[in-house]
C-alpha cells in the first residue's frame, strides 16, 4: 500500500491512574468505548463494501476499483460542503446519487465488456481503473488529505453512562444501521430483492425464468456504487480522504467480502463488524502488531473456509 496505514483515530482517552477501585471501572469504560468506535467503524465498512459483495456474488466479478466510487462520494461531499457551502446532510444524498451515476455509466460502457473475461483480465482492468482514479483525483484535488467541515453540533463527545460517545460516530451508527435494515428489507421483502437473490444463487436458471439478470446487475452495481459513495462521504472524517484511498482500503473491502461470503448481506455485515472492532481494538491494545493481525486472520479464514465464514453450504 502506498503511504502509511489507514488512520483510525480513537476517541478513547486513557484514564489517569486513580484509586484502585476505579481502575476496573475505567478499563470497562475504555473497552466499551473501543466497542462503540469499532461498531461505528465496522458499520461504515459494511456500507462501503456491501455493493462489492453483491456484485461479486452476482457476476463473479472481481472489482478491485470499488474504493474509487467511495472516493468519488467523499470528494463530492468535500467539494459541496467546503467550497459550495451545501449543508452536510444535503450533501450526503447528492454524494450517493453522483457515485451511483458514475457507477451506472461505467458499468454500461466499460464493465459490461469484462464480465465474461477471465479473472486475470478483471483484475488488470480494475487495477487500471484504480490507477487512473488515483492519478486523476491527485491532478484535480491535490495529493494532501482533505476533511469535510462538519456542523459544529456533530463535533465533540457526549458521556452516556460513563462511556465516551463521539457524536459523529453515533450518527454513523444510526445512518448505517438504518441503511442495513433497509437493505435487508429490500432484499427479503421486495420483488427486486427476490430476483436479485435468485440471480445470485444461480444466474443461468434465473435467466431461464425470465429474470433480466443484466438489468438486475446494472441496478445493483449502481446502487452498490452509490452506497460506497455514501460510505466515502460519511467516512471521510474517520478514515481520512486522500487520492490513495482506493488502494489503502481495497484490502479492507475485500476482507469484508471474502470473509463474509457473497451469498447474503448478513455475512458481510458480521464480517465488517468483526473487522471494525478487531481493528480498533488491535490498534489500541496491540499497537506493535499493527494491521498484521487482520491480514493473518484473513488468510487463516480463507484457507479454512474459502467460500467465507458465513457462506451457506448449499450454494451453486
Amino acid at each position, binding site marked *: 500500500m502506498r503511504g502509511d496505514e489507514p488512520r483510525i483515530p480513537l476517541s478513547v482517552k486513557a484514564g489517569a491512574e486513580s484509586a484502585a477501585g476505579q481502575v476496573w471501572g475505567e478499563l470497562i469504560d475504555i473497552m466499551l468505548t473501543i466497542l462503540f468506535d469499532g461498531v461505528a467503524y465496522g458499520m461504515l465498512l459494511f456500507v462501503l463494501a456491501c455493493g462489492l459483495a453483491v456484485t461479486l456474488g452476482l457476476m463473479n466479478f472481481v472489482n478491485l476499483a470499488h474504493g474509487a466510487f467511495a472516493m468519488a462520494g467523499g470528494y463530492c461531499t468535500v467539494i459541496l460542503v467546503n467550497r459550495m457551502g451545501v449543508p452536510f446532510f444535503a450533501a450526503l444524498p447528492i454524494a450517493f446519487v453522483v457515485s451511483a451515476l458514475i457507477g451506472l455509466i461505467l458499468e454500461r460502457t466499460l464493465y459490461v*465488456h469484462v464480465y465474461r473475461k477471465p*479473472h486475470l483480465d478483471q*483484475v488488470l482492468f480494475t487495477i*487500471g481503473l484504480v490507477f487512473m482514479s488515483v*492519478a486523476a483525483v*491527485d*491532478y484535480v484535488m491535490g495529493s494532501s488529505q482533505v476533511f469535510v467541515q462538519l456542523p459544529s453540533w456533530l463535533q465533540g463527545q457526549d458521556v452516556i453512562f460513563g462511556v465516551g460517545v463521539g457524536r459523529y460516530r453515533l450518527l454513523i451508527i444510526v445512518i448505517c444501521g438504518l441503511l442495513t435494515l433497509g437493505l435487508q428489507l429490500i432484499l427479503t421483502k421486495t420483488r427486486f430483492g427476490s430476483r436479485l437473490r435468485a440471480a445470485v444463487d444461480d444466474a443461468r436458471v434465473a435467466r431461464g425464468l425470465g429474470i433480466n439478470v443484466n438489468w438486475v446487475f446494472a441496478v445493483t452495481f449502481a446502487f452498490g456504487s452509490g452506497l460506497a459513495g455514501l460510505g466515502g462521504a460519511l467516512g471521510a472524517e474517520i478514515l481520512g480522504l486522500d487520492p490513495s484511498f482506493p488502494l489503502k482500503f481495497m484490502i479492507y473491502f475485500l476482507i469484508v467480502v*471474502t470473509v463474509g461470503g457473497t451469498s447474503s448481506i448478513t455475512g458481510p455485515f458480521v464480517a465488517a463488524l468483526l473487522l471494525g472492532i478487531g481493528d480498533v481494538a488491535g490498534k489500541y491494545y496491540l499497537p506493535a502488531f499493527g494491521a498484521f493481525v487482520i491480514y493473518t486472520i484473513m488468510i487463516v479464514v*480463507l484457507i479454512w473456509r474459502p467460500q467465507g465464514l458465513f457462506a451457506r453450504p448449499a450454494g451453486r
Partner: protein
Amino acid sequence: MIKTPTSFSVTRSLIGRSHWHPLEIVFWVAAFSTIWLFPTKYLILTEIAWLALFALSLDLILGYAGIVSLGHAAFFGVGAYTAALLAKHEIINEPVLALIVAGLVASAVGFVTSFLVLRGTDLTRIMVTLGVALVLRELANQNGWLTGGADGLQGVTMQPILGRFRFDMFGHNGYVYCLTVLFVLFLLARRIVNSPFGLSLQSIKNNPLRASAIGINVNLRLVAIYTIAAGYAGIAGALLAQTQAFASLAYFDFERSADLLMVLVIGGTGYLYGGLIGAIVFKFMQDYLSVWTPQYWPFWIGLLLVLIVLVGRERITGWTRPIRELASKLDWRAARKDGA
C-alpha cells in the same frame, strides 16, 4: 498416419520442443550486445534486467501453472532484504553467493506459502497472495531494528562480484552481472518448462481435474513451481538490492505486484519471452511517461491496462504470435525429422 506414441517418440518430441530457434539466439545476442552499444544507458538497462527476471518468475506460475497472484512482490522483497542484510552485516560478502542465499530464502518462504494457494478459486488466490505480501510488508515495517522500518535499509556496502568486479559508478559491472544472472536463470527456466514437469504444469493449467485423472499429482507440482518462482522473484529482488545497495518497504508494495502483472501481460504469458519483452516495453514507456508527466504517469499506465483488457490481451500480444508460430512450426519439423 497414426502411430502410437512410444516413449522414444515422446522423448524426441520433448527434445524437439527445446530446440533453440534462430530468433532466440538473435534475441540474446542483441541483449548482450547492449553492453557495448549503449554504455550511457546502464541504469535503465539494469532495471530492465531485474524486472525481466521478476516477470519471468511470474510467468512460471501464471503462464505455465495458471495461478493468478497479486502478491508476487512478497518474494521480491524477501530476496531484496536478505541480500541487503547479508551485505550490511558482512555475513556473506560475495554478491553471487549472497544472491543464491537470497534466492533460497525466498524459495523457502514460497514453499511455506505455496500451500495457501492450492485451495480455492482465483479470487481466494488473489486475496491470499495479496495478504501474504501485506503481512510480510507489515513484518518488515514493525521490525525496524532489523530492516530500518519505513526509512529503508541504508548503509549497505557491496563487495566486488566474485571478489574481482566492483560495482562501478557507471553501472557497467552491475548491468553485466544482472544480465548474466538473467540469462543463466532463463536457461534454467527454459529447461524446466520444456521438461515433462513443465508439460504437466500446462496440463494442470488447462484442466486440473483431468490432469489429476491421468495421474499427475497436481498439488505437488503446484508447490514445486511456486517454490521455484518464489526463488526467481527473490533473486530479482536481490539483484535490485545489490545494484542499488538499498532495500525499502516499497519492494513489497501492491503497486509492484500490479505493475508486474502488467509487464507480463504486455509481453504475453506462457512462452518465457513475454516477461522479457514486456519489461523492455514497460520500462521505456515508464521512463518516457515519468519524464513527460512526473506525478501523474500512473494515470496513463492505468489507461493502458484498461485498454489492454478491453481490446483483448490476445490481440495486444498478437504481434508476437507469428514469431511464436514460426518457432513452433520449425520445432515441430525438427521433431518429426528426428523422430522419423
